[in-house]
């Protein structure tokens, strides 16, 4: 939360950007079943001057499971969306980005990835495409369920992967003030 506050606190000129639209996708590629879901309820802020950021996803926003029952299980048993309504990643950018200079930036962000109420420190690679009007971003990383204390019952071992591939992409818009 600290970084989130920081991010809101220091909006300086055109350095503060907000996620305009984004989607988060997760893929569980288990031996017996591939589960894929998308979420458009992604919000976040990046302050390129302070190099701080926060991104969060509404857990209930995931759509596109193989069945409505599966979605229900996902919300209730694994993500426990009623207890932990949001997943987030917040921290600092390791590498600098100048939003006034168009181009492609490959940067790394170090922060706390909070899923299922368990925070893990992570370094995640992000690709930024800076255009004149807006900034496109995309990122892909792997989440180990064990790291976030999401345990899989044995009976569904073959259906849910231990490593979940997550990708997030979208666009950022400068926040005018």
């Amino acid at each position, binding site marked *: 939360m600290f970084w989130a506050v920081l991010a809101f606190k220091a909006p300086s000129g055109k350095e503060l950007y907000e996620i305009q639209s984004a989607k988060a996708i997760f893929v569980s590629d288990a031996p017996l079943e591939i589960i894929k879901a998308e979420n458009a309820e992604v919000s976040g802020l990046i302050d390129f001057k302070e190099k701080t950021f926060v991104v969060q996803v509404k857990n209930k926003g995931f759509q596109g499971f193989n069945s409505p029952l599966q979605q229900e299980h996902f919300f209730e048993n694994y993500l426990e969306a009623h207890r932990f309504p949001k997943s987030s990643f917040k921290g*600092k950018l390791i590498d600098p980005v100048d939003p006034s200079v168009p181009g492609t930036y490959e940067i790394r962000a*170090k922060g706390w990835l909070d899923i299922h109420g368990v925070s893990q*420190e*992570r*370094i*995640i*690679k992000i690709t930024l495409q800076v255009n004149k009007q807006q900034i496109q971003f995309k990122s892909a*990383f792997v989440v180990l369920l064990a790291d976030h204390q999401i345990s899989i019952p044995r009976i569904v071992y073959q259906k849910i992967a231990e490593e979940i591939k997550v990708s997030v992409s979208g666009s950022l818009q400068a926040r005018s003030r």
Partner: protein
Amino acid sequence: MKKVLGVIVWLFFSSLTALAQSPPDTPLPHYRELNLPGMREKAGLLHQDASSWLYLLNNKQLQRFDGAVWKTYQLPADTFEFTALTSYQGQVWAGTKTGQLLQSKGDSLLPFEPEEGWPRKSITALAVYRGWLWMATAGEGVYAFNGKRLFLFDLEDGLPDLVVSSLEVDKNGILAGTDLGLVRLAINAKNQKSVRLLSNEPLLSAVKSDGNALWLGLQSGGLALFQNGQLSRFAHADEDAVMRLLVLEEEVWFSDRAGHLWRFHKKTKQYSALPFTHNGKAIRVYDMWQSREGLVWISTQHGLLQAFPGVSTHLLPHPHDVQAIRILPNQQLLAGTNAGCYVKSADGNNWQLLPQTQQLHVLSLAAESDNSWLAGTFGQGLYRLQWGRVPQRIGPNEHRFNPNIFSIEPQPHGAGWYLGTLGGLYEYRRKSGADVVEPFHQQHGPGQYYIFQLTHDRQGHLWMATDGKGVFRFADGQFRQFNQLAQGPLRVASSLSADSSNRLWGSSPEQGLFVVENQQMRLVPLALSEPISFVHSLNRHQLLLGLQQGLLLYNSTQNTALPLERLLALPLTQISTNAYLADEKGIWIGMRGRLLHLNSHWLQHIALPRILLSEAFSIKQNSETPGAVFAAFDNNLRFDFSIPWFFDTDLLYVRYKLHGLHERWVETDKREIMLQGLNAGTYELEIQVSFDPAFKQYQSVKRSFRIQKPFYSQWWFVLLLAILLLLGAAWVVQSREEKRRLRQEAEKQSILAQYELLKNQISPHFLFNAFNTLSALIDLDTQKAGAYVEQLAVLFRKILHYQNHDTIRLAEEMELVRAYVFLQQQRFENRLHVSIELDDTALQQWVIPMSIQLLVENAVKHNVISQTKPLYIRIYTVHQHVVVSNKLQPKASPEPSSGFGLSSLSSRYQQLFGSQIGIEQTNEHFMVSLPLIETRL
């Protein structure tokens, strides 16, 4: 009680003298240049891994050295500027100025990148601690990587600065030197990071631990010591940043950015340059590494240097023979030579001759007080030496004593001194202000025999080495002689040394090394080319044996003796019997013009190296595991091994034996073994390394492997072959049988074909006659013609019926014959007589269809049948044959005949039944007999 206390007090004092401090001056450590033929690139980063292999990395090459062989790794095509080198999880890892990390794989160094990416800033240091690879960067903090997780320590974690220039592992964890202070880093079992600021001394460029203290190299030049939370800085005239730092026992060595090498003495806190050269040229240090063996490797622009900080040389101003050495309580070092006595003061670096001593031939020395020393001479008596005074001869008093004083040892309670002379044992005491020297002659003592050396053991007993009487011990007021050896009495003992295990070691010029243990004396067999001049016990296992021209490091448990001068490439000359002295760190050895100091801790590291046997190579496979199996024709093997040993490799004896093939050991100086054309079998390769050509003590390594039998002698192949042969034989037999059956079938077919043909042949000929007869009968006798047609029909029906039969019953054939005869009788009327004389048994047997009919037809065809000469045909049986016989009355002009009929019939019987038909012609008769077949074909 008082006595015991006295001994303890005496022990305390004597140990104080024995543990006198070594002089603080800084003589040059011994070092040598390594000009190695296999070394391609000279300057580079140095690292030694857990196997002791030394790695040298620069922008062109990664090389590995085991003391004998260089191995070169492949580098990627891109050029990297390497900044750090370490080994982690059995591989070599290198960091670059642009943030890449490279990892060794096989014979190559390849870039490695985790999913999270690597820094964009220069990697400044690499270290391994608790399974994590730690990486310091110039601008991003410190990364820790364990193969799964990558953590970054940065400002948020409490790191004072992102520019981190050094890492160090001490017993408490990992330390990082940043531009704004020194921190201790940790990751706990729950993957939680912690950073603790130890010191905020800025701009640290190097950190090295020293027990509980830390030495810090500063970017502004010079060192600082961090101890008990306190930091002390030591200003250095050289303000260049400290680059590489090594902490040795008494000194700290460091290089600066310009490559100059410096040392700092921990006690005197003084800096001085280390004037190492390479081929006479001043060196520029690239990197330094301190090995577990106590060696220091220095990579320079000209090549590698090997320094031995445990060995230092102190040069005297004159090349006199040093024959006695003493360290005085005030840390002064005293060296007695054949031409005077030299003193090296605690604060000075120069040796000074004690005034007016150059006439003295000093053999022994002792400290009487802080500024008064005793010198025993060769033929000149005993002298008292004092700084600033003329040497003072002690005695002779009323007891004239022998002026050749080889040894001086203190008496208990500071009462006085024992003097070992060429006239026996004396004691010197000060009695009411006067110096008194008296003989110490007692019963059972050495009497007036020469005493070459006196020494004390750990219990305070005095031992004497005599010329002619062996060894004496003086304990509790009693002398005891030790000279009983299994080989005869010990005569001359020249040197003695007691060890910590209550053993007394000694040397005899004639009989070599001996030991007194549990009151027993025995010789220690050692094959030496020259007599031992002194023996000195270093520790429980090691003895130093002084020879005239060398030093042996003798290991009493392994019974190996290593020549130190070769081991360390030391120039040794003229070592005198008394010219050695132990201090708390090691041993001083005097020789011509100089003194050598050997660190005994350091000498303990010299042990037999391990053999590292890597892969076994054949043409088709590389195998690192024991019990590898090689194919029968892949039987040319190469085994590579390595013996990390960085002293003189000529001291190592290496041999190998292939158990299962070799009868004897094969000696080798190579580091590979070629085994060619091995036969099938199980083998075990054993390699041994020893300091001793007889291999009494050795390190060995074994590797078993197997060469498979060729496929043709494998059990499965033999079995398979047997099965195949059996199958093959069965197949041959079967196919021959089959062929025979087929041939028979074919023959039968052809016969049947011939038979068919024959049957077809019969029909037209017969028909012609039959129709002629019929046409005649129609006119003559219509009733008969009707019967004729009827019989003709019977005949043809039968022929048609039997056409497809191979055999028919004789009865059936006879019906056919009767029909035929009836037809012919219509033509020939009573001129043709056929009598059929067959019984029922014969009629039930089998014949070829139309065979008898053919014979009857032949008879009709070839004989005259006239009113006058009617033809009589008889059909009867004889011996299982049916015989058709007719009166022989051949036609004058025989009817044209194919001649086919009879011979065809004959061959048919031959082929179908293997039986002959009988043809017999007499003047009167023509007879054909057909065998009767009992069963149907």
